[in-house]
């Protein structure tokens, strides 16, 4: 160390307190951000991992238990537990307790148990079964194990033994039967699809025409004040007879198809050795999990996702697809945005540009802001009482009197849901728009006035274009809030299963009065209302993942529009 310079004595540096430097605030703010990010990443990660892995086909297992019985199926999850004596005795039976104890001791006192999806519900009466590993005498993954995903009764696990065509055996042995099944399957599915089309489209059209005819008669009755004229009644009778005849023709074709499909049967041997006939047409998808390579598994995954995205749900929503829910969510959200954005923007324009600042204006502003804090279920109750039972009932009285007492608009529907959510998201749009309007520099307004522009011209040509990106932000927030909302929808139109989409090929093509399926409600329904909750659980994740994706997509679209607007008004090309 050098000697101290006498001219420049070392200044005593006063220790700056940590708080004065501000270091702890950096940590604190950083910690808050980390907390937020980890919560979001955790949630999205869970949904992503669980949702993405749901449709991956796992290996099939064949477990021979200590008592000689056999369990086949797929292991869905495993857990460790310390079994009690009673539990061991109950599971393995008195004869094998000693053997089981030995196994547990060898494993260090703990036992693993697997939740095996055993399927075959019509035979076993349950979809899942816990199997502890101390109860397993032999574990195998047989190559001949076949998984069927069926139209009804859920999954089926078994081994094909023979194939029958119209009651006559055409193939014997696992491999031949499987080949015969694979050959027959596409044809059967095609026939089933034809049958579905006949039932849904053709029969639906006839039924629609039938009810139209009845409504025409009813209208005539209302016009005549009681009894319709002889001519009207005769017309109705002729029309109905025609339609009934057509319906019978269609039903005959359906019966014929059913009869044909009944003739294609694969006989399967299940876990306990029994033979069970399975109609080929009932099988949605079939694969042999233990012979699949990665490409094969990917194929099953893709096929399952395809079904999930594009098909209708079956088996109480726990299987099949969610297409109606995707469609309902998107249509409802867009409808809501179309309603809420213009109203909110106009209201904000008046509040910011025209209304004189004062007590009334501030009160209105405070009231609007507080509206954002009202629980969403309250909006649902309001929507039900006002839109459905008051407005809707009046519309029914005026326009759809012939259908009464069956309500048309007087009950929950996609229009009322959109309006209810529009009301709920209105404060978001108003507040965002007001902020955006306030941010337009007064120099621009003055410049416009100085050119001789009227107030409206100034608003339309200067203020609104400049505020548009901010307004879009409000619309994005409103959309995100509205798309994820469930509680009010349960009251005003979202249902568990809506076979008819709000948009279809029957005049007037867009049916605002129809109830609809919604992904958010679907998640609730799957998770908490499903009779087979264990099978529905993975679907909760996939549906949640899908809902998030739908919202992200809608938001990204809106953000794209906003970015292009922003670029347009702040530099760049026109």
């Amino acid at each position: 160390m050098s000697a101290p310079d006498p001219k420049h004595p070392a200044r005593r540096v006063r220790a700056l307190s940590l708080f004065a430097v501000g270091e702890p605030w950096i940590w604190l703010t950083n910690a808050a951000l980390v907390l937020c990010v980890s919560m979001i990443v955790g949630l999205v990660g869970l949904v992503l991992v669980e949702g993405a892995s749901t449709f991956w086909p796992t290996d099939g297992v064949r477990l021979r238990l200590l008592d000689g019985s056999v369990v086949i199926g797929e292991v869905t999850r495993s857990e460790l537990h310390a079994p009690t004596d009673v539990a061991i005795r109950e599971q393995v039976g008195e004869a094998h307790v000693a053997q089981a104890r030995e196994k547990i001791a060898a494993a260090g006192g703990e036992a693993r148990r697997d939740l095996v999806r055993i399927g075959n519900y019509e035979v076993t009466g349950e979809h899942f079964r816990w199997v502890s590993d101390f109860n397993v005498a032999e574990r195998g993954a047989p190559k001949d194990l076949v998984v069927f995903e069926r139209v009804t009764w859920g999954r089926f696990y078994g081994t094909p033994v023979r194939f029958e065509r119209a009651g006559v055996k055409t193939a014997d042995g696992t491999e031949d039967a499987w080949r015969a099944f694979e050959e027959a399957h596409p044809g059967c599915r095609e026939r089933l699809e034809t049958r579905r089309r006949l039932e849904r489209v053709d029969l639906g059209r006839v039924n629609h025409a039938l009810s139209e005819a009845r409504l025409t008669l009813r209208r005539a009755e209302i016009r005549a004040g009681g009894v319709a004229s002889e001519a009207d009644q005769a017309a109705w009778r002729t029309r109905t007879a025609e339609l009934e005849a057509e319906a019978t023709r269609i039903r005959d074709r359906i019966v014929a198809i059913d009869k044909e499909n009944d003739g294609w049967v694969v006989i399967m041997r299940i876990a306990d050795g029994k033979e069970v006939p399975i109609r080929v047409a009932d099988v949605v998808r079939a694969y042999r999990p233990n012979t699949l390579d990665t490409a094969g598994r990917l194929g099953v995954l893709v096929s399952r996702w395809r079904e999930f995205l594009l098909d209708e749900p079956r088996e109480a929503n726990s299987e099949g697809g969610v297409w109606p829910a995707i469609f309902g969510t998107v249509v409802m959200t867009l409808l809501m945005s179309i309603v809420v954005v213009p109203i909110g923007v106009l209201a904000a324009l008046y509040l910011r540009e025209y209304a004189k600042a004062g007590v009334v204006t501030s009160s209105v502003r405070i009231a609007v802001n507080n509206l954002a804090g009202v629980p969403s279920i309250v909006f649902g109750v309001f929507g039900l009482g006002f839109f459905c039972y008051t407005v809707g009932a009046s519309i029914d009285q005026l326009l759809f009197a012939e259908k009464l007492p069956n309500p048309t608009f007087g009950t929950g529907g996609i229009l009322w849901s959109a309006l209810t959510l529009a009301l709920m998201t209105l404060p978001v749009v108003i507040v965002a728009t007001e902020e955006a309007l306030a941010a337009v520099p007064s120099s621009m307004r003055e410049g416009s006035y100085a050119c001789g522009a009227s107030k409206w011209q100034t608003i339309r040509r200067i203020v609104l274009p400049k505020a548009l990106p901010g307004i879009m932000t409000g619309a994005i927030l409103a959309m995100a809030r509205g798309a994820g909302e469930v509680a009010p929808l349960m009251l005003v139109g979202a249902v568990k299963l809506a076979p008819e989409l709000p948009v279809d090929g029957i005049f007037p093509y867009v049916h605002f009065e129809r109830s609809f399926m919604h992904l958010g409600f679907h998640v609730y329904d799957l998770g908490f209302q499903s009779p087979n909750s264990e099978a529905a659980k993975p679907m909760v994740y996939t549906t949640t993942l899908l809902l998030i994706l739908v919202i992200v997509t809608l938001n990204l679209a809106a953000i794209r529009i906003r970015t292009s607007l922003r670029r347009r008004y702040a530099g760049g090309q026109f």
Partner: protein
Amino acid sequence: MAAFGPSTAQPAPGAPEIHAAVANEEAVLDIDGFSLWYGAARALWDISMRIPRGKVTALIGPSGCGKSTLLRSVNRLNDLIDGVRIEGDMRLNGDSIYDRAVDVIELRKRMGMVFQKSNPFPMSIYENVVYPLRIDGVTDKRVLDEVCERSLRGAAIWDEVKDRLQTSGLSLSGGQQQRLCIARAIAAEPEVLLMDEPCSALDPIATGRVEDLIADLKGSYTVLIVTHNMQQASRSSDYTAFMYLGRLVEYGPTDDIFMRPHRKETEDYVSGRFG
């Protein structure tokens, strides 16, 4: 002359000194006993002055003396502020500005205004310039094109932007933006061009260009310009009015005001002794 209120700190000056040369000019704008209050605060005290046709008239004076208020009163921009009250009148080519029957919007169309801070609109250069015509409902592309080119040439910015008329007005530099605003202000052939410190936010080079432009505009337009910059006033204006504490103190040919002012306050201000 109306009696002055007792509220000012300064001793009430006498009647404004108006040089004889001003009276000989033909007036476009005649300000006649004009007073203005913001709420209870009086900002302008009985201003009377005539703005000569085809000349540049500068309004000078220390901050808060009411120059900008007077300028904004000419096209009634002060109407937009709550609690503004006026007395007296102004006449544009003989038409009253503050008469009840006057349509403010029509009135403003007869004037152009350039602001302290350039304020191009969030639209293309082309649309910025033809904005006064657009709001008048002009849609004839030929007319608009012609006005656009003429105004941009008039504002000496045509050569710089002629190849990118469709880019945003906000993409220009500060000096270009201000000249764009001048082009916009002259697009509708105004009877008076009002300029509120048009160069105060510009660098010296851009200032020089705008000053040259003002010199070019002289003759074809009547310009009323507010400025803080003595050199600018002396360089580019024909007449200068010195205002102080809301009153007109002295008004005359620029050379006289700067070289031979009649009033002591004027002399003190132009020679930099106060203000």
